[in-house]
């Protein structure tokens, strides 16, 4: 499972279920073997191997990438065999395969990760409501960006337009661990080969294989999981809030 999204407005969280090709939504206080309150699953969904997702609690939508390089958008309250209400797909989108994504409901943006091969990835920024074969309005990536490979799902902080990304590093053990790994911060106004505005936890820091990012805004903390450390780390990071 490569995605989870907590919806603070409706107090629920959603996860993809890859093997069963489903989106499961639970009440926020779920505990133990509790059934989901909603399940999106079935032939009309177009779900193939759902791994990542994000939820827009303001506009009541769930964003889900697919293996074939499209973004499916479902109604948050969809149940059962529902078709996506929008699909972002096509060569102009530059979308390739399943990738982490994050929706910014304040600035009405959708940020999607994408691979371009050669040890480089990029951040694609779309309008939140884009549909069909649409070019991204901005692309962040390139050698100066140090976007080697996405570690996992990233986060956005709409109030300051920040995109917080875990970046896997290169090296002889890159599959498992790299001292070059770090968490970087970009901005929704960035475009092109832009270096991160902030790096934390690395390079040559504590992180080895950072993955998911979450934000604790109230306490100005950034949370990051690390595969090699098999741990969840909390960094106080007031500068980005």
């Amino acid at each position: 499972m490569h995605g989870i999204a907590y919806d603070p407005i409706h107090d629920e969280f959603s996860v993809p279920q890859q093997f069963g090709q489903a989106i499961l939504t639970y009440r926020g206080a779920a505990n133990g073997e509790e059934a989901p309150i909603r399940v999106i699953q079935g032939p009309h969904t177009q779900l193939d191997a759902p791994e990542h997702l994000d939820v827009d609690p303001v506009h009541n939508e769930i964003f889900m990438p697919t293996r074939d390089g499209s973004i499916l958008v479902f109604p948050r309250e969809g149940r059962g065999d529902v078709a996506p209400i929008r699909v972002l797909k096509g060569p102009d989108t530059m979308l390739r395969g399943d990738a982490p994504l994050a929706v910014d409901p304040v600035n009405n943006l959708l940020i999607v990760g994408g691979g371009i091969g050669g040890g480089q990835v990029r951040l694609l920024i779309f309008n939140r409501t884009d549909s069909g074969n649409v070019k991204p309005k901005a692309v962040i990536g390139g050698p100066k960006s140090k976007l080697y490979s996405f570690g996992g799902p990233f986060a956005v902080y709409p109030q300051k337009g920040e995109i917080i990304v875990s970046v896997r590093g290169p090296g002889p053990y890159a599959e498992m661990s790299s001292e070059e790994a770090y968490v970087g911060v970009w901005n929704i106004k960035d475009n092109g080969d832009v270096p991160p505005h902030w790096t934390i936890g690395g390079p040559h820091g504590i992180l080895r294989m950072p993955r998911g990012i979450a934000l604790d805004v109230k306490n100005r903390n950034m949370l990051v999981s690390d595969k090699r450390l098999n741990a969840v780390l909390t960094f106080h990071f007031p500068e980005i809030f």
Partner: protein
Amino acid sequence: MRRLLLQQRLIAKGRLAIPLALCLAAWLGQTGDFRRDPRLVSLDALPDDSAECDPPLAPASGLLLVAGELPLRNLLLQERLFQNRAAAALAVAANDASQRKPERMIRDPYAAYSAVAVDAAHDEVVLTDENLFNIWIYDRGAKQPPNEKSELKRLIGGLNTKIEFQCGLYIDPANGDIYAVNNDTIDTLVVFSRQAIGDVAPDRELHTPHGTFGITVDEDKQELFLTVQHDNAIVVYNKAAKGTEAPIRVVQGDDTGLADPHAMVLDTKRNLLYVTNHGSSHQVREKGNRRKAGSPGFPLDRDDAVPGTGKIGPPSITVYSKGATGNARPLRTIQGPQTQMNWPTGIAIDEDRNELYIANDGGNSVLVFDASAQGDVAPIRVIKGPASLVSNPTGVFLDKKNNELWVANFGNHTSAVYRPDANGDVAPLRVIRSAPAGQPVPGLGNPHPLAYDSKREQILVPN
């Protein structure tokens, strides 16, 4: 999702330590030892967030090491002192927080055993560890004080070993070679000789499909079987396969009943293959000519998934002929509410008694079935309860030579030994512990995404 942990936030004290220490450093223009400063005493209340250092800060690694040890009240005083000077002092700051230390880290310092096997020829027990990424070898019969850590005989671990989230384990009965399956993160089966110790490269590596979990070997035919969770498949290799050698056959298809398959065991007397399944599945169909050149003979994978065909079904044990291939239908299926199965993971067989032992992860139990069972049948024995120490068991091994049943408990830092006919809430005969009894178990296993529940101040961590 293996587990969804709702981690209570352990916040309160110290949450301002790092930024405030940074503020102080900027104000003083130094990175001195604050612990020796007698002025750092205050009983002030927490300030509001606006009092923190909002401008970008320059980290100072030496200071950061100290910051976490400073009492919060001292830091609050320094924040007061800092307020009027911070902005100017930090105007020249950089954006590098690469050396910043985390305020907290949820991490288990002890091994979490995931699979167990006995090397009967050398009287050793081998355990894989999904937390610290080691293979631990102990004397099989070693007796330890009941609540203390066990004494280690050998350890294999480190980046050169390519050991990570290991799940399946097989010991070659002839020479003690250790076959260990990396699940999900490294698509490699690693094989170590009995002499391997420390951070050594595997003696042999085999490139495998993504998401292998269980392993078993047909010693008569010298064939090695691996389950593939992600693809609902079984791949069969020559036992000596290495590198990018292709499987010699694949079991995969709509009729197989494979649904998130985990462990396997062979009944060599009856030529049967038993597979535990967690229950989720989808159809696959080859999409054009996109097969990976470096992966000949691999099963169809997630890129071949047929959209919208997914099912989340009940767990099962599916039974096949040992030589099954292709879209083979199971000969029998054990499945249903009476089975008590809940994430059935590890599996072992007593061919003489015709009994199956299941490590029932989600049910915190070991289930024993008549191996001839079919359909919705109850187990003939269940090991479960606080005295048994069975807790999220993921591995099980039957040591026929010594007539012992071993269980790897992911949930409590133990591997426990029972008589094979144990039933109910029975205490184990012996226990190997990676940690003193009672140590907390975060239960992290391959954490990837995170979410923060701002209402409850909890971290949600799928594993």
